[in-house]
């Protein structure tokens, strides 16, 4: 995860929905196209987006880390082991339809990964919460998407503490496969039971602070959403709908 990277680009200053809409459009269009050229145009679009946000350096490394293993497997599965006709490529014989398919599949993954990493790098979680709150999104969805992520580090820390605590009680981490399966019990059960035991306190804390007040929550610093960006997002919806209509009617 690269997460938010502070910056001053246009997309950093945009309403948080805008970069997310761009990334979503790249995802939906990538799945709509099924030939190499338009798919790799999507990769180019994602790269331009990353360049525009000024986070290309932070994005490209993790993107390659995610995509490269997949690309290699695609090359082996479809290129080397693919259907004939095959053509020589250096010392290898590569399947022609297989390579075309690998380019489509690999391009999709590249485009999606780059676009979303760039979007995540430009959307500050705090602004996203304020943006959603200002839009009147209810507490539930915001809570599930955001509070889960903020609770994660503490829970990971707790899992690590439990691992240490059980080792300090003589539990060996290692040994035979059976022993390792059995060790799941003293490691997983305390994590789950401890979390369940805290549910009531968490509910009380939210309830007493008005999470269910039913009133529209006041955003502390609502991001501006100029008309131009709303038009842009609407335009993206139209493009995606048109592309999928064309795809489903076999026109592309």
């Amino acid at each position, binding site marked *: 995860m690269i997460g938010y990277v502070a910056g001053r680009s246009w997309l950093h200053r945009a309403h948080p929905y805008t970069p997310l809409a761009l990334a979503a459009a790249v995802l939906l269009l990538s799945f709509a196209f099924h030939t190499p050229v338009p798919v790799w145009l999507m990769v180019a679009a994602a790269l331009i987006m990353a360049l525009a946000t000024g986070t290309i350096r932070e994005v490209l490394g993790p993107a390659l880390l995610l995509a490269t293993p997949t690309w290699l497997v695609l090359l082996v599965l479809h290129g080397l082991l693919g259907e004939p006709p095959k053509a020589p490529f250096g010392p290898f014989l590569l399947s022609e339809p297989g390579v075309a398919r690998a380019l489509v599949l690999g391009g999709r993954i590249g485009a999606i990964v780059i676009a979303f990493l760039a979007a995540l790098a430009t959307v*500050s*979680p*705090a602004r996203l*919460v304020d943006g959603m709150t200002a839009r009147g999104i209810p507490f539930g969805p*915001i*809570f599930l998407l*955001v*509070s*889960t992520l*903020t*609770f994660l*580090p*503490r829970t990971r820390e707790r899992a690590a503490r439990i691992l240490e605590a059980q080792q300090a009680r003589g539990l060996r981490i290692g040994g035979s496969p059976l022993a390792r399966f059995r060790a799941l019990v003293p490691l997983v059960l305390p994590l789950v039971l401890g979390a369940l035991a*805290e549910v*009531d*306190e*968490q*509910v*009380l*804390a*939210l*309830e*007493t*602070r*008005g*999470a269910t*007040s039913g*009133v*529209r*929550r*006041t*955003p*502390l610093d609502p991001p501006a959403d100029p008309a131009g960006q709303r038009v842009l997002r609407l335009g993206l919806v139209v493009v995606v709908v048109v592309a999928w209509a064309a795809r489903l009617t076999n026109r592309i």
Partner: protein
Amino acid sequence: MSVIRLERAVFRYAGRPEPALTVERLDVARGELVAVTGPIGSGCSTLLLVASGYAPSITGGTLEGERRIEARRPALVFATPWTQLTGIAHTVLAEVAFGPASDGLPREQVLAAAHAALERLGAHHLASRDPALLSGGELQRVVVAAALAQQPDLLVLDDPAAELDPEAADRLYDLLGDLAREGRTVLVATPDVARAAHVATRALVLERGRIVADGVPASVLSETDVARIARAAGCPGPLPLDVAALVARVAEAG
């Protein structure tokens, strides 16, 4: 005019047949600071939840008898501050502002309430920090500030100093005294009898889910180190609870 009134109240948790709390009668008036004490497991926490109206509505279980609470949304603070974060705030300021923001107050009022609450806890320097990265002690102060930001008439705290170092714990209890003097009603349960006794206007002692003593702290409390010394050294009751009180009772050194 009482803020809390319980009469013949019996509370049971789901899955446990025996009552966790049985109260013949309890009246708590506006501006009282009540220390709720007793051996661990004697029902202090349960009393707090019943007296603030959140048991059984949130905790499950059943309540029989009469209960009247004259307070708008009582605030709660527990010993485990990490369970009390909303998780949707990325700064301490936003965390503390959650309560007033949930009421839909205008932005300026929300921020003013949050800043004022942090100020009272001496936690203003934490305002722009990420709550997920605070230490237990810092978090505890933030959670109390979040409760105060709602400007509650009734504040209920369960061992609120568990994560604090001794100095910060002293300051928290002094703050509770101030809040009561401002006319807020405060209930605090704690095993730290000495600190609670120091600021409370009234103390309840519970045993096995029943109130066995109710009065001014000096007359009903006896489970502090100083009181133990006095008792063992033959001091007649009511026992002094802190060092100054003990010194005042020594007529003549042996």
